[in-house]
């Protein structure tokens, strides 16, 4: 087993920001991985498997976040989560 550690920058692109439904999507996806995953915004750290912690970040549209993961599937987890953010959680807006 290889222990990995990785981080990526993501942007909240959907107009409504990181509200309950996107947060629900993040937690659902993050919980599929064994790695510890965190979202960091301006030094505030939120467990990506905790919906309450993510909501507390109050990340609006345009917010820059850092995704950090540590664990055997860290790379894979970041890959999947980055895609989720880039797709705006399936919420289209212009």
């Amino acid at each position, binding site marked *: 087993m290889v222990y990995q550690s990785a981080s990526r920058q993501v942007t909240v692109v959907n107009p409504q920001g990181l509200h*309950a*439904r996107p947060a*629900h999507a993040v937690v659902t996806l993050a919980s599929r991985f064994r790695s510890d995953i965190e979202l960091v915004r301006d030094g505030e750290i939120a467990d990506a498997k905790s919906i*309450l912690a993510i909501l*507390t970040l109050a990340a609006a549209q345009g917010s820059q976040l850092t995704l950090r993961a540590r664990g055997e599937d860290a790379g894979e987890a970041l890959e999947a989560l980055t895609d989720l953010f880039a797709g705006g959680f399936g919420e289209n807006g*212009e």
Partner: protein
Amino acid sequence: MQTLQGIAVSPGVAIGEALIVGNEGFRIPRRLVVRDAVDEELQRFRSASAVVAAEIEHNRDTISSQIGEQYGAIFAAHLMMLQDPGLQRQVEQLIREQNYSPEYAVSQTLRRYAQVFQQLGNGNLAERAHDIFDIERALLRQLLGARREELSNLKSPVLVLAHSLSPTETALLDRQFVLGFVTEIGGAGGHTAIVAKALEIPAIVGVGSFLEQVSGGDSVIVDGDHGRVILQPDEATIDRYQKGAEDHRSLEVQLRGLRNLPAETTDGERLLLQANIEFPREVQSALARGADGIGLYRTEFLYLGLEQEPSELDHFQAYAEVVRAMGDRRVTIRTLDLGADKMGRQPQQEERNPDLGLRAIRLSLRNLPLFRTQLRAVLRASALGPVQVMFPLITTLQELRQAKMVLADAMEDLEESGEPFERQIPVGIMVETPATVMMLDQLLKEVDFISIGTNDLVQYTLAVDRGNSEVAERYQASDPAVLRLIDLTIRAAAAARVPVSVCGQMSGEVSYTMLLLGLGLRGFSVPPSAIPEIKRVCRSVSIPQCEVVARRAMQLYTAREVDNYVREELRKVAPELLR
């Protein structure tokens, strides 16, 4: 005996025992547990969590099947909050390390989260604080074991008296046992009121503070026809209401026979009697009463109770269900008719006067992606059966043209992607302001039908907010000024050979049916529950007879004179319908 006056939002009379649903404040003792009991207490918290999780799942499934998946989705986030690892860890830590009782630990932890959300000051997150309080209440109810008589677990008929009921709580009421409900707050236009009407439960809102005067089990009469709540009624009053209820039941049985008969006057004029609906499942009530079509399908429910805008699929599924159920009968879908303030999004700046602000078509034209999503879904539904689309609050020709342009764009999109739709879909507008009436000669050239929305027409014509008790009595659909605008509208539509209907509250009130027929109206769109009575009037009168009534009514000076006169005329033809 004590009589209270509120706002009648759903008709009918119910007599029964009170069930009081308080906004319960649980008293939480700051109790510490002995060290030896910590494991046991942890276990108590965990099993309470499990029970509450099962409850939320159950609510999610019930709501999903009763109202729609979109509403059920709210509970998925709810469930995730309850099971949040951070939350669970903090509660357990307080129990283990501080020796707090589970009740106290839960309350402390959840209130802290709620506070954080409230302080973030963002509208959506402040709403989440309510979710947290909800979860707290549910957990405490389990832990304290003081399960109140649950609304969802009724065993005998009751009248529900509450400070307020959310639309969700209202939708979950068990119709078998909930005979009616009364709330202290709320207004006529609220969503709770609309849901009550859809469920056909007698309901009164906005009674003001009264719950401390009642005890559970007291007998109560809810008179949803007049907005009256009678606490501890005397026997004579109960007798009177029971007699009224019996008469009403026999009238209903009698009216049921009309279902398969056409809405036709005695001299053979066939009328279009359609239904107004809000939720897809109401289509069954409409069909059961023999509606000729859906004259007004409100789509606001798709936007409420959700934080994110509904997807095209959400729209399409809701429309498809109604269009399929109605078969070859026409369905008129009205595009979003909400103010920015009601959409859970913060308006750009606080609106001092939301009724005159960014609402209805104005909001749609300002949010083209949102508007286009809805129109695409309407168009796709038009491939399944006869559909027409109606724009609310059109006040200028330019707005109509812009709206039609967005519709044309949506058609082009669908064409490119090969989606089927009806290219000739009829396009209509609501007539809701005096400006619209004044410009009808122009507007009528560019629409296929119009529908008079009397509720807004009354408000904008008479400059009266009916939610304001200082002036509410001036809010009268029978005000001569309003009647003249309706008269002008019907005439202009007839001259242009454009079909016109009335879909506001006025069209569902039996006392106005003759007057409207006499003014030349041939299309009515009313709540499903009003169809039999309106049909009964139509089948009892001739057009010339109604024209006499209309001519006479148009010469009267005040709303009160008009109301008295039309009621007397109705008494002559269908006295049993007068309440």
